[in-house]
């Protein structure tokens, strides 16, 4: 199909640039279970960070499964209570003139500081406005971390981080940038938890629904992560990325699961000859879980499928990057955490509930999905 811009492209792939590999020079995260290494080890042990907490924080409400950073309250504070944890995370990031002309920063989030905006509306405390818009919140972070002005702010629901990775890789491939930093953050607030609670998919009936239990609740989690991308070199590369939007419905995917397959199949072709495992999105909603497990089972029948949101909660727009950091630890060590927090029977026999100890895998496909029928995936492997 030829698009209006003259590209010869099929609906399931992006421009050729997105097939250009980039080096994943560094990647780290923080979750309720710690940094990437700590999160990886805790998942291998089967730990669940999710715990029932009042949906409106100190204002009460139904108990819902949330995974907050240790010691952090759900209530919004001014300045945000998550900034010290972000600073600790970014100490793991290699030094570079981030935000300079050749070192762009891509900041992604679902929520930015929307909880602070809600706090301002509710209590009228002006200082919350300093963090209450994406621009203000990112300016605060950039100031704290010493970034220059070459910062791009992106949001695309729960594939926000994936969009940042795609655009950063394009700048590397086009030689606009020497290195690119992708930073993503999503910290929960009563506003965010309350929204999912109002949608009836966050409730007290944890765990998530599965094949033999048709009711339950997703979990939400705090998370932030970064990735440094460079021209391909030795070590780990993101070999290819896809994004695909079905433009189907605000909250739903088409019932045939075609979008899941359309996003992952091009990567499976690129990975031909490699031994893969798949890190699925695994939000925990009944229908999306079924569609994803079945589609991935068909597209990649030899690959085990795992998901980690049953422990970490869904870190929303940052989940693609938080889980990439954990996937990197898993691939590097040959120790892959299982689908923590889920129970048999699963929708597909490919879903692995327990950890996998196998160093012969040489690639992982990391998939994410979002409201609006958005899909994203990437292939992480050794150069």
């Amino acid at each position, binding site marked *: 199909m030829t698009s209006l811009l003259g590209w010869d492209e099929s609906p399931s792939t992006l421009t050729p640039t997105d097939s250009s590999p980039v080096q994943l020079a560094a990647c780290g995260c923080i979750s309720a279970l710690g940094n990437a290494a700590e999160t990886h080890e805790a998942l291998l042990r089967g730990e669940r960070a999710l715990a029932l907490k009042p949906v409106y924080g100190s204002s009460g409400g139904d108990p819902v499964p949330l995974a907050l950073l240790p010691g952090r309250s759900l209530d919004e504070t001014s300045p945000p209570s998550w900034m010290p944890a972000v600073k600790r995370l970014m100490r793991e990031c290699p030094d570079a003139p981030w935000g300079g002309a050749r070192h762009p920063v891509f900041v992604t989030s679902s929520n930015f500081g929307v909880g602070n905006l809600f706090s301002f509306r509710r209590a009228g405390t002006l200082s919350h406005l300093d963090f209450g818009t994406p621009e203000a919140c990112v300016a605060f972070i950039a100031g704290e971390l010493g970034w220059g002005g070459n910062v791009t702010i992106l949001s695309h629901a729960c594939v926000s981080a994936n969009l940042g990775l795609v655009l950063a890789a394009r700048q590397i491939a086009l030689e606009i940038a020497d290195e690119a930093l992708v930073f993503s953050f999503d910290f929960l607030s009563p506003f965010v938890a309350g929204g999912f609670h*109002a*949608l*009836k*998919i966050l*409730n*007290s*009936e944890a765990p998530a*629904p599965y094949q033999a239990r*048709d*009711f*339950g*609740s997703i979990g939400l989690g705090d998370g932030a992560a970064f990735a440094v991308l460079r021209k391909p070199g030795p070590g780990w590369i993101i070999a290819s990325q896809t994004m695909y939007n079905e433009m189907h*419905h*605000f*909250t*739903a995917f088409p019932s045939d699961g075609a979008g899941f397959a359309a996003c992952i199949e091009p990567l499976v072709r690129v990975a031909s000859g490699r031994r893969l495992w798949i890190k699925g999105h695994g939000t925990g*909603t*009944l229908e999306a879980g079924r569609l994803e497990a079945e589609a991935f089972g068909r597209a990649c029948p030899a690959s085990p499928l795992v998901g980690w949101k049953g422990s970490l909660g869904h870190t929303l727009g940052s989940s693609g990057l938080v889980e990439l950091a954990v996937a990197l630890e898993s691939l590097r060590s040959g120790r892959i955490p299982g689908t923590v927090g889920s129970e048999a029977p699963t929708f597909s026999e490919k879903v692995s509930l327990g950890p996998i100890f196998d160093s012969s895998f040489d690639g992982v496909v990391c998939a994410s999905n979002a409201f609006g029928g958005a899909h994203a995936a990437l292939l992480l492997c050794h150069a």
Partner: protein
Amino acid sequence: MIAASPMPDPLNARIKTMIVQTLRLEDIDPSSIKDDDPLIGSGLSIDSIDALELVVALEKEFGIKIKSSEESRAALSSVSGLVAYIRARADPLRLPPL
């Protein structure tokens, strides 16, 4: 002798009117909604957002609590199913007598 058919539950008509009003289905006559037709995936074209709007209205009107999206889907199986669901959970004082 012809056996008398049971009186319809007056809650059925109230629910049908609520559906039309809440979802602003201006071209639909409430009485044209059949008691046992599926509400989701039928000619009413109710999607998940409509269902949520309807659930919120039902919670407010009848003082019930529908916890999850899966429970919503089950409750909204049909008008008859919804009426049975509400009868089983709501304070009888908020409901029309049978």
